[in-house]
């Protein structure tokens, strides 16, 4: 961006972009690319979801899924726009209330009659014809609150203290996360519980919690590993089924086996968009949790690696965004940087986790591919967290007067 030149003062040299000006234009560039990458992912998902919804007999189900997906995208974009427009300060201040709201929803979902029971788990709330998954909202609210809470640590302390962390100021730091995770675990939804736990750990880690605390946590995990015996039957079967997969994929549970077959049969370039056979009936949940396998079959290694690269680029430009957001001068932005880093890592991490599930690298877990999988709360929540990242990393104002070279 070039600065305006006043013709009345000809002796004034044309402006050279100053540091801050250059920084501003670079931030602009980064934000644009970040949004463009998110848009690319959304568009990619739209194609693949439509293709993966095709059924073996001619039906209109693919159209139904497409329009549903488009509706969710539209809703999500509006929500993301609002989230991006809300100033970072307000997000930080609203964090406790958001977490409280999510907790109430998580309690509501456990009450029979309000929560919808599907396949033995109460995870959904039915609101005005739409189903909502409160544990998805917890994925946003919990890291935001933890980040905000850390910024309220006693500034007089020059280092972390365990007592401060546990009992602390107003609300003990670790109490709400454990309440939320407990509520999610009651649904039961082990996968999301672990995901939330990972989010909290990442927040603490990034905020600079001394590494020795993590070491203690690891030591305490050893007795916790005995808790395997407390796992429910179906959870144990998932884990054993997963272990069998490593030795022989043919022994894998049906869905995992079909997922690997779908992915593997794509080869280098795949069979072509819309030409896959596996999605027609062999692969369950082809357009939601296992949409990545369909990408593998139809677009091949080129498609899957491109998606991986897209996520990598998104992560990179997100990091740029976070880095470029000033921190020290405006402390509230440091909170924003912390929260947006966690949100970004969660988003990319969920995508990587989904790929790991589809490729049978981790035990099977119902986890959707953010921005790609068809519809649902997750799409909206992913878009909202993108909006929040944009909001939390926004430069409030650039310096008004250009610094001219001497």
């Amino acid at each position, binding site marked *: *961006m070039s600065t305006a030149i006043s013709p009345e003062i000809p002796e004034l*040299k044309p402006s*050279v972009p100053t*540091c801050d000006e250059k*920084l501003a*234009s*670079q931030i*602009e560039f980064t934000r*644009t690319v970040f949004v463009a990458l998110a848009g690319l992912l959304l568009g990619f998902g739209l194609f693949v979801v439509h293709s993966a919804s095709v059924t*073996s*007999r001619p039906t209109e189900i693919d159209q139904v899924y497409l329009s549903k997906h488009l509706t969710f995208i539209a809703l999500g974009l509006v929500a993301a726009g609002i989230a991006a427009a809300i100033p970072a300060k307000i997000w930080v201040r609203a964090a406790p209330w958001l977490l409280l709201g999510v907790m109430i929803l998580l309690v509501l979902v456990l009450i029979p009659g309000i929560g919808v029971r599907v396949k033995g788990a109460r995870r959904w709330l039915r609101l005005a014809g739409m189903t909502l998954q409160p544990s998805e909202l917890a994925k946003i609210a919990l890291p935001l609150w933890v980040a905000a809470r*850390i*910024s309220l*640590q006693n*500034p007089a302390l*020059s280092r*972390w203290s365990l007592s401060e962390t546990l009992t602390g100021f107003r609300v003990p730091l670790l109490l709400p996360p454990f309440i939320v995770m407990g509520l999610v675990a009651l649904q039961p939804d082990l996968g999301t519980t672990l995901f939330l736990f990972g989010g909290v750990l*990442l927040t603490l*880690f*990034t*905020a*600079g919690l001394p590494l020795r605390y993590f070491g203690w946590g690891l030591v305490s995990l050893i007795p916790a590993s005995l808790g395997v015996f407390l796992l429910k039957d179906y959870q144990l079967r998932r884990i054993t089924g997963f272990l069998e997969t490593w030795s022989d994929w043919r022994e894998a549970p049906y869905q995992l086996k079909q997922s*690997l*077959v*779908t*992915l*593997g*049969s794509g*080869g280098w370039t795949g069979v072509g968009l819309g030409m896959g*056979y596996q999605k*027609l*009936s*062999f692969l369950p949940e082809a357009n939601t949790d296992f949409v990545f396998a369909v990408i*593998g*079959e139809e677009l*091949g*290694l080129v498609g*899957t*690696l491109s998606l*991986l690269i897209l*996520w990598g680029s998104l*992560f990179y430009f997100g*990091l740029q965004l*976070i*880095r470029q957001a000033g*921190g*020290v*001068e405006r*402390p509230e932005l*440091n*909170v924003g940087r*912390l929260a947006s*880093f966690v949100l970004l*890592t969660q988003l*990319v*991490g969920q995508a*990587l986790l989904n*790929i790991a599930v589809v*490729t049978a*690298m981790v035990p099977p877990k119902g986890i959707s591919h953010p921005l790609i999988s068809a519809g649902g709360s997750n799409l909206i929540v992913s878009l909202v967290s993108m909006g929040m990242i944009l909001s939390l990393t926004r430069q409030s104002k650039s310096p008004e007067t250009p610094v001219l070279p001497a």
Partner: protein
Amino acid sequence: MSFSSLIARIRNTCQNWLFHATNRWSQLWPFIHQLSDCWSQIPLVQSLRRTIIQRWFPKYETSSSEPATQPLSSTESLQPQPTPEYREWLSFPGRFWKESVLKLRGAQWILAAGSMARWIWKGCTSNRMRQAMELSTEPLTSPRDSVNPAASYPWLTSRSMEQRMLIASLGALVVSVVLAGRLIQLQVLEQDDFSRTASGQRIFRQTVPARPGDILDSSGRILATTVTTQSFYLVPSLIDEPESFASKVASVLQFDPQKLSQKIRNSSKSQFLWIKRRLDPSEVISIRELKLPRDQWGFREEYRRVYPQGQIAAHVLGLRNIDGIGQGGIEESQESILAGQPGSETLLRDARGRVLEIDPTSTLPMSPGESVTLTIDTVIQLQTERVLDEVMTQWQPSSVCAIAMDPHTGEILSMASRPTFDPNQPELAASDSWKNRAISDIYEPGSTFKPLIVAYGLEAGLIQKDQVFDCERGQYRMGRRVLHDTYAYGSLNLTDVLVKSSNIGMAKVGELLGNAELFEAAQRFGIGRRTGIELTGELPGLLRPLSQWNSYSTGSIPMGHELAATPLQMIAAHAAIANGGVWRSPTIIKAPRESRTQVSQQVISSDVSRWMISEPLREVVTRGTGKKAQLDDYEVFGKTGTAQVLLASGGYSHGKYVSSFICGAPIDKPRAIVLVVVNEASVGGEAFGGKVAAPAAAEILKHTLRHLSKDLRWAASPAKNHPSR
């Protein structure tokens, strides 16, 4: 190396690359202008483009859209200038792609790859180059890290947070690399395995059964044909409530609902279960009207063999089993012609087994079976069967069979056997009804064998036509054995020996011939070996080797004892006497000619043949044992036969007889010869062949001749219609 400098390095490289890429694109702009002038004339487009350039590619903006009045020199002096080496380095890939890549052949690829690698290496290592890169965009030295390090939140400093972020990002990077490796492993290294599994679970090779050919009678009437029917199957794995499903289906098909639901339950994991195959059209309609859930059942087309004439010629035709394989009769013996060649097709199925599409490129069409035309005439066959039914009711024998044959060609005109079955309903057939007694039952021919010995003796010159035999007043001692005649005869000439069917006379003939010649006679007329008719299950009869014969045989063989023959062998032997002396193996197939297996041999001279039928055999009917075979319109020749039934334990059963009669007409040129064998007639006293079998045989002969002459009249009629020719 600090986080910030790493980020700055990566960013600089990216931006350089981006700048370079836009530079390449900029060369395209004039071209796009030329292509569509109007496009760039639109002010909106112009402003949009300017905005895009300003926003995203600010470096490009200065070179094209800045006003000329802008004093550029001063700006440039301040901007860091890329070194000439750097400029050269930048331009390399463009030249490389433009000039080299498209023309590369063989080893040039290696050179090109080498220069490319060198370019990358130079870009990474050259110190002067690195300087140039760092100069080209000013490194980000934001004051925020250096200024005011002692913030009020010591644990939230940018630096500590960025270090942690770096560690976390590196973790994500490692995970991504691992996942990318896994993807390469799955999609490239193990692709074949997965592709095979994927195609194996959707591609299904299915055989298309061939339609079996028809069986026709000599004038083209259909005796056996094939129709397409629906077979009913279920998909047990999709049936939730076997009870209600079974009760609905059972009510339509008249099944036991309990058993059916049990059957469904037993195979509840499987995808396919036959319920009833080859349904009637009415059953198909009523099953459709049940409106069962569409996924759980279906029809599959199958062929059903239909015998439109019902029981007619059932033993000759045989039948096809549930899998369409011929069993018995023509269906089995001509399987290779009738069966045809099954085809196959490749189907694409979904996980539920539903067919999505058929691959037309890999379809092998089935070739239907060819039809077989028999020498059987349905009308003659029908009359034959009627006569046999009458015999069955009149004499109540255990079994009866009849054959009508054209003696000159050896073609079987009709062949029937009782008890019989309906090939359309094989499940209702009695266990003793399957046997085709005309070819699979052996009996002692008795007196019907006598003309064969006489004819052979005359041919060999061992006896004379006018020879007189002393019949010893009904009692004749041969060694330890005493022979009897039914009536006491004195001297009989050769004709009368046959007409009266004198056993003693035949024994004397036998003494004249001797065992060796008797054996030769039996062999020459085809006793003891299969005739070779194109039907399955034919027996060779029983003719002991000459070494086992003794003096007893000399008396027994000429009377048709001590040997056993099938009815077909007997009629074939008599056909040789009737047709001028040529033994022809009987045949039942008219077309295709290739599958007809016929051999012939002159066994007696035509003189002997003519004398045999015009003298002794004619007189058997006019004044001998076969009087009941006389016909009004034709002069008939024939021979009765009565023999005691052979027991399985050896020896004879008293009071049980095999009664047979062979007759033919007309005498000057016999057109048909008929054999009826009645086994164990149980009512009406002693079952002489002349009493039990002769009327039936004559009846069949009459109908046969009438039908044949009718055909002749039709054949002759066109000539009558055109007297001018």
